[in-house]
């Protein structure tokens, strides 16, 4: 409940933050919303000597529509996304996901960038970053680097973010026409993290055939990943309950599902398949109703 001592830095710009990061290196932690970091510090599982609070860097906040893409600053809070008219207009799936994260107080503080940089295996955003093929904008002294979502998540709490780099924002490209999407989550009863979170974005043609399927899954493996086999099986077939069921049956393949005191590996795999199937049925329903992501 009482964190250890640290020195607090509040840079006003990204460059200042990078300089501090360069100076303190491994002894420093970046503070975004702090809703994973601060609890760890309170329990003294983490005792960084320096905390670099990014909260004062205005350029890292906000949702902007730039041409065909939606740019979200890394420090934008979940509620900032949930309540963003820009996001609602351009990519409503983002609002749908944001509104399901933890609870209102956490959504008011927790940030999209913090969540994606932390890469908790049960966090919500990773599934959607994958399903939407987001681009991760990282900055370091060497300049800017863009990482596709498919390369971002590398393991348990491990991302492509390199030492000395700051995740500054996300860019979500325009989805193909006739893409319907949804986020379906089984909330952990105690922690409110995702036991399984499925973000599905499926493009169909006017005949109902699946042209492209992107399904990101969080909570099941050691890190979020795409349900590659399910996607492949769907593509080129009519998006209907039978094909969905067949494809969802493969959803957990390739995931390194573990067991804990709440759910066994078998439970996780079963829930993964069921939630993928239901998410896809949800997508189908939206596609049939003409509710596409703009």
């Amino acid at each position: 409940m009482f964190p250890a001592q640290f020195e607090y830095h509040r840079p006003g710009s990204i460059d200042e933050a990078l300089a501090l990061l360069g100076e303190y290196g491994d002894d420093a932690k970046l503070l975004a919303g702090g809703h994973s970091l601060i609890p760890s510090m309170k329990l003294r599982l983490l005792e960084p000597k320096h905390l670099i609070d990014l909260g004062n860097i205005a350029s890292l906040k906000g949702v902007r529509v730039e041409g065909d893409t939606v740019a979200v600053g890394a420090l934008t809070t979940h509620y900032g996304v949930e309540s963003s008219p820009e996001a609602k207009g351009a990519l409503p799936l983002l609002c749908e996901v944001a509104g399901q994260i933890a609870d209102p107080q956490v959504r008011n503080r927790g940030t999209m960038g913090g969540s994606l940089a932390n890469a908790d295996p049960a966090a919500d955003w990773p599934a959607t970053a994958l399903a939407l093929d987001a681009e991760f904008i990282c900055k370091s002294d060497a300049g800017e680097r863009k990482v596709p979502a498919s390369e971002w998540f590398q393991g348990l709490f491990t991302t492509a973010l390199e030492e000395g780099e700051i995740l500054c924002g996300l860019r979500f490209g325009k989805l193909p026409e006739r893409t319907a999407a949804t986020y379906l989550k089984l909330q952990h009863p105690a922690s409110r993290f995702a036991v399984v979170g499925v973000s599905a974005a499926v493009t169909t043609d006017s005949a109902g055939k699946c042209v492209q399927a992107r399904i990101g899954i969080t909570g099941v493996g050691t890190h979020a990943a795409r349900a590659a086999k399910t996607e492949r099986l769907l593509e080129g077939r009519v998006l209907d309950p039978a094909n969905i069921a067949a494809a969802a049956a493969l959803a957990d393949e390739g995931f390194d599902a573990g067991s804990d005191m709440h759910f066994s590996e078998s439970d996780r795999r079963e829930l993964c398949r069921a939630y993928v199937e239901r998410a896809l049925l949800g997508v189908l329903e939206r596609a049939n109703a003409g509710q596409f992501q703009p």
Partner: protein
Amino acid sequence: MKLDGEVVLPQGTDETWKRINDPVVLKACIPGCEELERTGEHSFSAVVKVKIGPVGAKFKGNVELTELEYPVSLKLVGAGEGGVAGFAKGGADVKLTEIPEGCKLSYVAEANVGGKIAQLGARLLDGVAKKLADQFFANLAKYEA
């Protein structure tokens, strides 16, 4: 918690055996290992920094190799104290088999943690153990003296 796995190492069983018994190699391959010293013929003391997501702790402990049957099997037993974070102990039965590609190393490990990491990280233990094991063997496979 139990975990098992299998890796194919490019080196043969002899070389693999040597590496597992070599403090220099072990230090280079154990993820986060800051110090590793031989304290007996088959025992070592170690300092390992574990930094995964919500936890960053330095574990001080010992590793011992027992039931050595050159060059096919051995048992690795270790225990470490991580201060406020708690402690970890475990053992692994390691088997080496000569194969055309080099050496197949299979292991069956059992690990136990206690203190705060058990109390607060229950949902992550499986994943952490797997990650550390995977990293260790990946490092071992690509280690070059």
